[in-house]
């Protein structure tokens, strides 16, 4: 039981994040609907964002706003991963936007976003 607790305390959150990531990949591969594939892609991107936020965390750290008198870096959490993730969120929004625009055009051309239907009409 101790081993399990130890594992959950040290690695639990990363395991969950990785499961979330590969759930996203799994969904992208197996979903039969293009919109669902897109949603699975978003799940995957969110997993990456969680991953960064997890390793930026540290015990006893506070939000990185300079408090007068406290210049000890150990008492703040590292803000850099959060800053990186702001960029990654913007990028993932851009990707989603492009993907939805493409899906709208696919729907216009083929009349559906179901993979089987689209492939059937595309092969004609």
């Amino acid at each position: 039981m101790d081993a399990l607790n130890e594992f959950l305390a040290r690695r639990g959150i990363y395991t969950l994040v990785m499961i979330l990531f590969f759930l996203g990949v799994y969904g992208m591969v197996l979903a039969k609907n293009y919109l669902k594939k897109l949603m699975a892609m978003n799940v995957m991107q969110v997993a990456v964002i969680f991953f960064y936020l997890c390793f930026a965390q540290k015990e006893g750290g506070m939000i990185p706003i300079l408090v007068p008198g406290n210049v000890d870096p150990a008492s703040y959490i590292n803000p850099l991963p959060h800053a990186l993730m702001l960029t990654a969120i913007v990028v993932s929004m851009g990707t989603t936007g492009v993907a939805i625009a493409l899906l709208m055009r696919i729907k216009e051309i083929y009349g559906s976003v179901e993979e089987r239907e689209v492939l059937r009409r595309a092969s004609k």
Partner: protein
Amino acid sequence: MSLALHSPVFIVLLPLSASLLCLAFSRIHRKLGAYVVQLALFGALISSLVTMRHVLAEGTKSVHYWMGNWAPPIGIEFVVDPLNTAVACMITFLAFVISFYSKPFLENEDWLHYGGYFTLYGLLTVGLCGMTVTGDVFNMYVYLEIMSLSGYGLIALGGHKSMLAAFRYLLVGTIGASLYLIGIGYLYAMTGSLNMADISERIQPFVNTPLFAFVVACFLIAFGIKMALFPLHGWQPDSYTFSHPGAAGFISGCMSKVPAYAMLRYFFYVFGIHNTVMGALMNVLGIMGICGILIGSVMALAQYDFRRMLAYSSVAQLGYIAVGMAMGNIYGFIGAVLHLINHAFMKSSLFLVVGGIAYRFGEVNLYRLGGLNKKMPVSSIATVLAVLSMIGIPPTCGFFSKWYLMLGAFEGQQYIFIAVLVVSSLLNAIYYVRIVEQMFVQREASLTEIHDPETKLGMPLSMVIPIGVTGLAILILGIYSSSLVTNIVEVGLPEVLLK
């Protein structure tokens, strides 16, 4: 002169600002935005040439440009070493030349399509150049995404079938980008730095840990997807085939080479290849390359759509680059870099020819090109040059990169690589020579003209000149390849290979 000191940043800054302003200018006059982007691309070409002169002149191994004068590792820096400038010059040169080529395709479009096309085109150049010159791992992610997003857009502009190709590429490409992001995350967690030069020092205590192996695997898959390395190339044939014909030359020429170059930079300059993890990785890379060469060549043999054949041929040629990296010695490295540059020109030239044929006759079946040498003389000559180069016949540039790959394989005593290179050259000869045979020997095919040729050379002048220039570049790169190697590639060799 102080402006010359800022030349590294202008490579990225000029096309970026021009493409963001492009739509506004296009609103004023339909074609104004395109001129602004072209001017900026020309500026980027000049700045990369200035940077190259700066890097090569003083015996300085590299130029470091600090963004906002923040010193690394805190600030973001652009690192321009001899190899970077060569690749940046290649990108900006091709981008500038092919931007003229795109215009006849857009003649009947309204301002939104005309300006939008050039916005995406400029942003693609920004992404490619940025990935080449940046010295910051996260910065590279941002440029990778700029490149990918504008690439999806340009592919989707190609017509009805291209939507599906672009959407699939988007899904697969996002997996690659996410894996790259995870890789950076682990690197940052291990080393606490995002600067490449800094990481290359701080990573050394960790090179035998499983985490490092995980990072390297992430990078291999991420860049493998983006460069269409063999088992990860599924998105590529459709995307190249259906992408916008005006941009296909640029997309096929540069969009897969720059991730390959980024991979090369990580493996040789940041991680170093002399540790067990990288040794195992090099084997994997070599196997992927060999499979890619053979399967890409065989698939290309089976195609009758000219563009699709070229796309599969790209899979094979990327295999050469992977094999060159996998040899892990100086000759293999030179061969990989040289092939990266040469292949960009060869493939661009061939895709420009196909686009020209499709523009005038609406035909892409390679068995219906009979008698084309009379109708399109310049294209036919460029095709011959590119085909000779693909097979590897001197004095075209393809010979020299294959020569260095052979030397590398001999030095490493990896005879399987030699066998594969010979077999694939034969396969190349089979599937490329049939095009030349069609063009010059077969009797004239009955083709209907859908566009007026305008000039005696068979196409509008703005399309003939890029084809001629890229065709000529194949020859020039071949003739001057020894000076390219001694002056640029050998100066920029990574330290791990020199020991």
